[in-house]
């Protein structure tokens, strides 16, 4: 079987599992992170509010006002910074917040919990730009190294939020608050869950695959068994096809044998009887001849017929009887010749013991097949041989004979009353062409596309196996040849076989 079911199922399920598992993991991760971001953002906003309540009005608003005119490098020198810093640290200690920054509307850092960053210009930062326009901007960032309040932390996942801050009186945005909070543990948990999920999914898919594997392997086993059984059945049918045509052949051949046997038996029996009647005249003639030999010339002999009279007088020799015996035995000789010819043709037809592939004269093979077929087909069908001059070709004559016999008997069977089957051969360039032309009913249009299909037959059940033509085509193809059909309903059918002069493929068994 060319289709390896188990292999294909394994490959496709693996690909499917990888895609589905990966997709699931990705989906889970992005969903969890989205969730976390949203959660963290609102917590950052809340935190900001805490800071704002504690620090904004009291410290940052005045700082903002005071620093409007201060040049960037000098921002850190503002007197309020120290107090703000102290308060800030107090608020942040023990929380997951690592850093806070405050920007004025020009993007300058007026405060950072990392004091040396005060004065940096962040006006081009997308987060800042967004927040200064009134939108909270949050993103997840990974930092290899990060200076937190009191120490430097490594390898951290952080949520960075830019939150606009309003003037409590006018409600206008006056600055931007930036807050970093650590989500490394959250992310680790997500990764953890993701891994666990991966294991569960892998286990589930593994179990599913195992079940599939068992089912598919069984299915494949069943398919293989069925395939074997079908092949066996086909072989048996092919065998019975052979046997059926053999049976037909045997019936025909026995008729062809019974005819010469019949008249030979008849003639020999009659000849024996007739010869017996010559025994007495021969004995009398022999005695007479002896007497003549023993008697010197010119001497007279007197025969005493008293004793022999009765016997001798009963002799009546009809000379025609002698001729009749010769004719009878002559016919017997002809009968024997007919039987010898038949046996020879039968041997030629089967060639069971001969080399499988030989240089063969196709015309001779066809003549033999025609001879054998004549005994199996109705006598109202006439077979005409129109053979051209053919070179010998390398082939398996026994197989080709089977094909020829099949085509000729098919042709004869398609003729309801009297008709002809013409077998014509021709040498054309690099191949020989064999036509089997009948004057039968033709092949109906709905049957024509199926005639070379196995088990297709228009004959009654038990008569045709539907394998004759498929086998014929296999044999012709194994010789590197082709078989074609042309048919006209009501007029007849022509099967054409072309065989290459040089065998392209060695014929199979």
């Amino acid at each position, binding site marked *: 079987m060319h289709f390896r079911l188990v292999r294909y199922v394994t490959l496709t399920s693996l690909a499917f599992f990888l895609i589905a598992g990966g997709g699931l993991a990705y989906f889970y991760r992005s969903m969890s992170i989205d969730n976390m971001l949203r959660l963290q953002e609102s917590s950052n906003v809340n935190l900001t509010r805490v800071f704002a309540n504690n620090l904004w009005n009291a410290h940052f608003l005045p700082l903002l006002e005071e620093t409007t005119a201060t040049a960037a490098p000098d921002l850190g020198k503002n007197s309020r910074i120290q107090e703000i810093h102290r308060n800030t640290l107090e608020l942040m200690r023990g929380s997951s917040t690592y850093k806070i920054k405050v920007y004025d509307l020009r993007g300058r850092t007026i405060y950072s919990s990392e004091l040396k960053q005060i004065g940096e210009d962040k006006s081009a930062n997308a987060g800042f730009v967004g927040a200064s326009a009134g939108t909270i901007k949050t993103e997840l960032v990974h930092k290899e190294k990060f200076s937190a309040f009191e120490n430097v932390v490594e390898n951290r996942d952080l949520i960075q939020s830019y939150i606009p801050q309003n003037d409590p009186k006018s409600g206008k945005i006056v600055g931007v608050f930036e807050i970093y909070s650590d989500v490394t543990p959250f992310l680790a948990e997500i990764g953890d869950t993701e891994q666990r999920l991966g294991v569960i999914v892998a286990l589930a898919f593994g179990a599913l695959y195992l079940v599939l594997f068992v089912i598919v392997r069984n299915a494949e086993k069943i398919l293989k068994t069925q395939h074997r059984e079908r092949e066996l059945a086909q072989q048996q049918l092919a065998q019975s096809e052979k046997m059926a045509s053999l049976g037909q052949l045997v019936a025909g051949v026995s008729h062809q044998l019974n005819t010469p046997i019949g008249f030979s038996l008849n003639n020999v029996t*009659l000849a024996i009887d007739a010869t017996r009647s010559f025994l007495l005249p021969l004995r009398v003639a022999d005695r007479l001849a002896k007497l003549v030999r023993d008697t010197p010339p010119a001497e007279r002999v007197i025969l005493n017929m008293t004793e022999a009279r009765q016997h001798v007088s009963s002799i009546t020799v*009809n000379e025609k009887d002698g001729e009749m015996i010769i004719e009878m035995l002559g016919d017997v000789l002809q009968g024997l010749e007919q039987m010898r010819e038949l046996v020879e043709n039968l041997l030629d037809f089967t060639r069971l013991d001969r080399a499988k592939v030989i240089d063969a004269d196709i015309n001779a093979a066809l003549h033999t097949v025609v001879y054998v077929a004549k005994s199996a087909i109705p006598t109202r069908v006439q077979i005409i041989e129109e053979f051209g001059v053919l070179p010998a070709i390398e082939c398996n004559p026994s197989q080709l004979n089977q094909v020829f016999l099949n085509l000729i008997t098919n042709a004869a069977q398609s003729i309801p009353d009297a008709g002809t089957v013409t077998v014509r051969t021709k040498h054309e360039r690099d191949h020989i062409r064999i036509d089997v032309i009948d004057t039968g009913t033709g092949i109906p249009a709905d049957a024509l596309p199926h005639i070379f299909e196995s088990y297709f037959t228009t004959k009654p059940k038990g008569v045709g196996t539907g394998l004759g033509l498929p086998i014929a085509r296999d044999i012709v193809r194994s010789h590197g040849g082709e078989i074609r059909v042309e048919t006209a309903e009501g007029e007849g059918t022509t099967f054409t076989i072309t065989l290459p002069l040089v065998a392209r493929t060695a014929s199979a068994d």
Partner: protein
Amino acid sequence: MTSATLSMSMPGSPTPPRSRVLCVDDEPNVLRALNWLLQKDFDVTTAASGHDGLKLVREASFDVIISDQRMPEMSGVDFLREARAISPRAMRILLTGYSDMQAILRSVNESEIFRYVNKPWNVADLPKVVAQAAEIARSLPEILSDPEPLEDAALVASAARILVIDDNPEVHAQAELAIGDLAEVLHTSSVLDALQQLQNGNISVIVTETRIGTVDSTRLIRLLKQRYPEIVTVVLAEESGADLVSSLINQGQIYRFVPKPIKSGYLKIILRSAIAKHEQLKQDPALLRRHQVEAVSEACTNAFEADLRSAAKAVNLDAENDSGGVKAAQGFGGFLRRLFGH
């Protein structure tokens, strides 16, 4: 020539004209052989084809026609059917080396042949068969034709009794349907019951299978024809073989052999013509000679008797109280002897 000299040597007795035999075969060797075999006793004419044969049949009246089956253009069966139409009095013998089932069936149903002879023929027997056929043909020189199909009224008047022997109820229903009220149909599903009916007498036509249960009923057909040649036999068979049918021709002179299933219309035609045939045979018993059969061997009779005994035993086992079965089992030989005169 030989016999001419012989007749001259006996001038006292007038020689009856010799029977005329026509042999048809496409093989000239066969024709010559038949001529050599038969020329001593018969006036032999030969033809190499059915067409030539028909020409001769139109010109002269033959007593016996022997024909090969496998011939180009016109088959033996076709030739004999035509010959029968032209010269019904001639006895027909089909001589063939090829057991073609279709041909044999047609030889029964269409050509109504006297004997079916296989090639190679028996050199001692064939002249005897021909002589018997010739003698029958000459004893009935008048032209015979098929009996006219009977009108319904005539059919009813004939009070024909049809005995159907078959273990398949469908066949009985079909027969009943085919003949309607025009004749009495007796139904039996075993050969034992059939024998009872036959003993009651007056059966015109038998419709039978070749095998009923364990009993080979073809033996019944053969035995019956010897004793009651006027009963016309129609065989409806599930299975048929060339040898079976040819032996039923030669030993049973069956009227028709039809493979099952049979179409109702066909059965109707067959039953009507079978009744007509029976009427014809009854009115002109001389005709019975035309259906003379080959002698049935002792072995056949014995085998039939053994078959019936075991069948009767089986019936007994089935229904111990069935008096019919018991009766059939007891004194069986006597029963058969009464029936068949052995």
